[in-house]
Every structure is written in structure tokens, then in C-alpha cells.
């Protein structure tokens, strides 16, 4: 096969595939953030902690209820989504009238509380969670060994992302949501229960984060800090994509995953910072973000 800058095409495709896998997590998480921001105008800093909660719920379900991965995929997002609804009712609803920054500060505080509490009870070494038996092993694709589980991650995330996009952009429910974002008072006048929609939207966004957490559990360490550093990268992804569109968030997530994968091949030391550098460049050229509408 061909060689590109000294890296064989085999290695290249292998790395691109891995980049796509990472991109799936970025896409899922930035999608959740975009949905929440679109509806509530709040940056959900707690997103990282809720991602962590999803992973831990999967762990608990396995440890204490003997329920495996397939149960966790369904139950964990629901459970964590419910906690999200509680958070919204208890804390967030008081902040809508205030400056947006208070929402950011509150969710930041909640993230600290969640992470701190889990750290106290579970230490920081992390907990084991294995790949479900049905997805173990892998395919030898010739240019790399692709673990089945990772392939599943890409496929399933794409499915979830596209379904979410479809619901929001192409269904009646989605149109209510989009209308309520633009003009809540008017939509209320039409008899639609806007506060309930807001609450459920937040719950849904949180559930997306938890779903990403469950999917991450077998591959990344299930630890209280797993969300903390990831969330900042996701913020950068969101800034690059622009908060305007759902499809934008999905495309940016996958795209940046690919770019990060490429960086790991050619310039590994920079792979932590490449997304931030891209963010800086995008800000210079197109401040609204690649898919954003207005500042």
C-alpha cells in the first residue's frame, strides 16, 4: 500500500478509525450540551459529572443488581436523566431570570459536589468494568485489529445522534422545542407547557451524557474524574461547531475526533492541544463557529 509522510496507509487508516471512535464520544457529549444550551441557555458544566454518573450507574447495576451492559444502556440514561430533572426543578429553574453566568457557576458547583462525593466513596484508582461478552473480541481487518466493541461505539453513537437530529429538526415535537427556544412566551400562549418541555429537555441532554458514560465504561477507566478533563475538550468542540445547529455539533464532534486521530500519528505530543489550537483559529476566522448562527 502507499506511504504518506513515512506512515504506512495501514497505520493511517487504523488511526483514523480510532479517531472516529473518539469522535463518537465528542459528538454525543457536544450534542447533549447543544440541546441543553439551545433550550435553556445554560451551559451545563455538570455534563462531565453526569457522564461519569452514567458510567458509575452501569457499574452499580452490574455489581449490585447483576444487570449487564445491555440493561445499563437503557436504565442508566433514564436514571441519570431523572436526577437531571431533579436538578432542574430544584436549582436551575430559579436562574432563568438571571444572568446566564450564574447558570454556569451553579452547574460548575454541582459538578464539584458530584465529583467530590464520588471521589470520597470510590477513591481515584477507578473501578473495573469489562466489555460485554457479546461484543468481545474483534475483527482482523488486515490493516488493524478492530475490537468489536469499538465498532459498536461508532455505529451506535451515529444512530443516536442521527435520531436526535431527526426528532429535533423533522418532527412536531422538535418543532415545538425549537419554537420554544425562540419565543417561549408565544409558545406558551399556544397552550404548550413550556416549563415542562424545558425540564424534559434538560433531562434528555443529561441522559445523552449518561449514555456516553455507559459506552465509555468498558474502554476508559470508570473513575470519578473521567468527566472533568473531557468536558473542557467538549467545550472547545462546541465553540468550534457553534451552538446554532444540532447537525453542526454532530459533524464537528466526529470531525475533530478524526483530526485528533491524525495528530496522534504525525505529532503525538500535540494531540492534547490540537483541538484548542483549532478553536483559536476558528475564532479568528469565523467567530460564530463553523455552523453557528450569529454571535
Amino acid at each position, binding site marked *: 500500500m502507499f506511504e504518506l509522510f513515512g506512515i504506512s496507509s495501514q497505520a493511517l487508516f487504523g488511526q483514523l478509525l480510532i479517531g472516529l471512535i473518539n469522535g463518537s464520544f465528542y459528538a454525543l457529549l457536544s450534542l447533549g450540551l447543544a440541546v441543553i444550551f439551545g433550550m435553556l441557555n445554560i451551559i451545563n458544566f455538570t455534563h462531565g459529572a453526569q457522564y461519569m454518573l452514567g458510567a458509575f450507574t452501569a457499574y452499580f447495576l452490574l455489581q449490585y443488581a447483576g444487570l449487564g451492559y445491555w440493561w445499563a444502556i437503557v436504565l442508566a440514561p433514564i436514571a441519570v436523566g431523572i436526577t437531571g430533572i431533579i436538578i432542574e426543578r430544584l436549582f436551575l429553574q430559579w436562574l432563568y431570570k438571571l444572568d446566564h453566568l450564574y447558570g454556569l457557576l451553579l452547574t460548575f458547583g454541582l459538578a464539584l459536589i458530584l465529583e467530590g462525593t464520588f471521589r470520597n466513596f470510590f477513591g*481515584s*484508582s477507578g473501578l473495573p468494568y469489562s466489555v460485554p461478552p457479546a461484543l468481545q473480541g474483534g475483527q482482523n481487518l488486515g490493516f488493524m485489529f478492530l475490537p468489536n466493541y469499538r465498532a459498536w461505539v461508532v455505529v451506535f453513537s451515529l444512530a443516536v445522534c442521527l435520531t436526535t437530529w431527526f426528532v429535533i429538526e423533522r418532527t412536531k415535537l422538535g418543532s415545538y422545542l425549537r419554537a420554544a427556544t425562540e419565543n417561549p412566551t408565544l409558545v406558551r400562549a399556544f397552550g404548550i407547557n413550556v416549563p415542562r418541555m424545558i425540564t424534559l429537555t434538560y433531562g434528555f441532554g443529561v441522559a445523552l451524557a449518561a449514555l456516553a458514560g455507559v459506552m465509555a465504561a468498558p474502554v476508559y477507566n470508570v473513575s470519578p474524574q473521567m468527566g472533568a478533563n473531557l468536558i473542557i475538550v467538549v467545550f472547545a468542540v462546541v465553540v468550534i461547531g457553534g451552538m446554532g445547529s444540532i447537525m453542526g455539533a454532530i459533524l464537528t464532534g466526529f470531525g475533530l475526533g478524526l483530526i485528533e486521530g491524525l495528530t496522534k500519528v504525525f505529532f503525538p505530543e500535540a494531540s492534547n492541544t490540537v483541538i484548542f489550537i483549532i478553536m483559536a483559529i476558528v475564532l479568528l476566522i469565523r467567530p460564530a463557529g463553523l455552523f453557528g448562527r450569529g454571535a
Partner: protein
Amino acid sequence: MKRLFSLTVAAIALGCGCAQAQYTDGSIKIGVMNDMSGTYSDLSGQGSVLAARMAVEDFGAAARGMKVEIVGADHQNKPDVGSNVVRTWIDVDKVDVIVDVPTSSVALAVNEIVRDKNKVFLVSGAAASDLTGAKCSPNTIHWTYDTWALANGTGKAIVKTGGDTWFFLTADYAFGHALERDTAAVVEKNGGKVVGRVRHPFPGTDFSSFLLQAQASKAKIIGLANAGADTINSIKQASEFGITQGGQNLAALLAFITDVHALGLQTAQGLIMTEAWYWDLNDSNREFAKKFAPQDKGIHPTMVHAGVYSAVTHYLKAVEALKSDADGKAVVAKMKEMPTDDKLFGKGVVRADGRKIHPMYLFEVKKPAESKAPWDYYKLRATIPADEAFRPLAEGGCPLVKS
């Protein structure tokens, strides 16, 4: 009669007073500082405080008329927090000796402060071999392990047992580089070959692309020059990519039994690492572990905990012999003069550069089927004798060593 009685009491009191040792503030205060809430809290944490307490009890301090207090603090793996705590401890709380301190950056900072204030620093948790090298101090003893011993132990022993081609996965920061450099040197010196290396950002989460490169290199051994969560993640993901099944072995250059516990045997099996102490090596260790574990949430003692026990025991012996804890340099000099002997490490010695000498052990993690009980994780692959385990005295560059 009453008068005689009170006179007698007075005489006895005076007599006791004369025989009494002069401890600063009337007591010996031991400060155990480590990570109590973060990534190293299981391998040190409250367990080290417990180990110190067990050492004081086993030494029988109370019976010997020594009042010993133990205080603990969390340095959160940050040099500034650690420095603050130690400064306050010494200036305000009159602490006499600082013990444990994992995380080399904190240990190095504490090393300077303790030297300035002439107290004693007994390092169990940290790895930096500089503590007995360029940064050595007459107030510091480096007890349990260091990067040189790990590099030498793991590197040399693995090459000798057939692992002669290496690929390094290194955390891209000073500690990772140092670990890689030291181990690579040892591998090449013993006839092995380094076929490739890749540096991953620190801290990292996804190592799949780097592991792919390691796999492609076909090296027999993949050396993990990283620590903590990075090591755990690399190992987990390596298992996912079938690296061990494919015939390559992972060598964790800095790992502890608590990491293996976090990974689970299914994932960690086959892993090779060097440690200074293991609870299941002999009866004396097992007995200690049996007493220790229930008091530390079931966590079996790590080499760091054992090091704390051993260091505190030896410190108390030295202080008792000197009858004083005021002059840090004098106490450390005494600790170097007296050979060490405790139920966990057996007989040993503290060198002029502050390095405690004892054998190191090369372990391989058991397969799940081979483990009979929780925490039964290791099988012994090799023992590195004490005189070979640590960097030779002359090579450290320590100013205390008269060449």
C-alpha cells in the same frame, strides 16, 4: 509518715526527670502527609497513617516513656499545598518528622523545607531518585523505592528472562521521560534493544492509537513509562486490543498492587512489575496484612505502607538512642549509623546518601484462575539482591558522598 511519703514521691519524680529524654515540646510528633483523596489515596492515604500508628504501637513507645503523636494531612498531589502544610506543621505545630509524601514534585519541595528547618524527612511514597542524587540532603532518607530501582529491576530482570525487545509508551512529562530514559539505558546495557517509542500527552485518556503502534512494532515487551490513571488506562485498553493475547507483555514501570486491584485480574494478568514489598511473601508480612486490612477498608498493605512502618520504627529507635528529637541532622546520622531491622523488611542499612537498602522483587500478575483469594495477585518472578537493587553510591552525584 505523710512527710516521708511526699518526700519519696518528690525524689522519685526528680529521679525520673533526670532520666527523661529531652524531646522538643515534650513529645515526638510524626506528620504523615500524602494523597488522601486523589489518585494515590489507596496506595498511601489513611493506610500510611495506620501503618505509622502500628509502628508506634509495636515499638512500645508508651512503655518506653516516649510520648508519640501522629498527625495526618492531604497534600492533594500539589507541591504548594504540601509545602504549606509542612511549613505550618514545623513552625506552628512543632512536628519533628515528615513521613511518606508520594508524588515526586511534592517530595522534592518538602525536601528543601525540611533541610532548611533541620527536621527529618522519611520518604516512602515518592519515586524521584534525585532525592538521593543531586538533591540529597542530610535530613532526608529515601525509604521504599525509587525510579532507578524500578527501571533497573523491571528492565534488567525482564531482559534476563527473555524480554529483549522493547517499545516504550511514555507519558510526555519530566517523570515519564526520566523513567523511559533510565529503563532504556538498563535494557540496552543488558543486551536488549529498544525498537521504538511513542510519547502520549499527559494526562491521557485514550491510548488506542499509541497501543496500535506498539502492537505494530512487534516488540516482545511494551514498557509503560507512566503512572496512576494513565497506567491503568493503557493496560485496560491494551487488553481490549488483544495485545497480551497476541504474545506481547506489558511492563508497568511504576505500578502498585492497588492498581492491579482496580484493573481486575482479567485485564491485568501477565503484567510485570517491580515492588519492594508484597504482603503474601512470608508469614511475617501476612500477619501484618491480616491486622492492617480490616482497618483500611479491606485494602491490603502496599509497599508504601510497609515503608512507612519500617521508617517510623527505625526513627523511633534512633530517637530513643539519642534521647532527643531536636536536631534533624543528628537523628538521620544516627539512623544511618544503626543497621535497620524490622518485621517487614528484615535487616537492612541506610547509606550515606540517604538511600535505604533492601532487596527488590520482580512480580508477574496471576491469571484469574491462579488467584485463590482477593488480593492474591502476584507470583514472584525474580528477587533482586539488595546490593544490586539500587543505584551505586558513586553514580548518584550526591554532595554528601565523599568521593
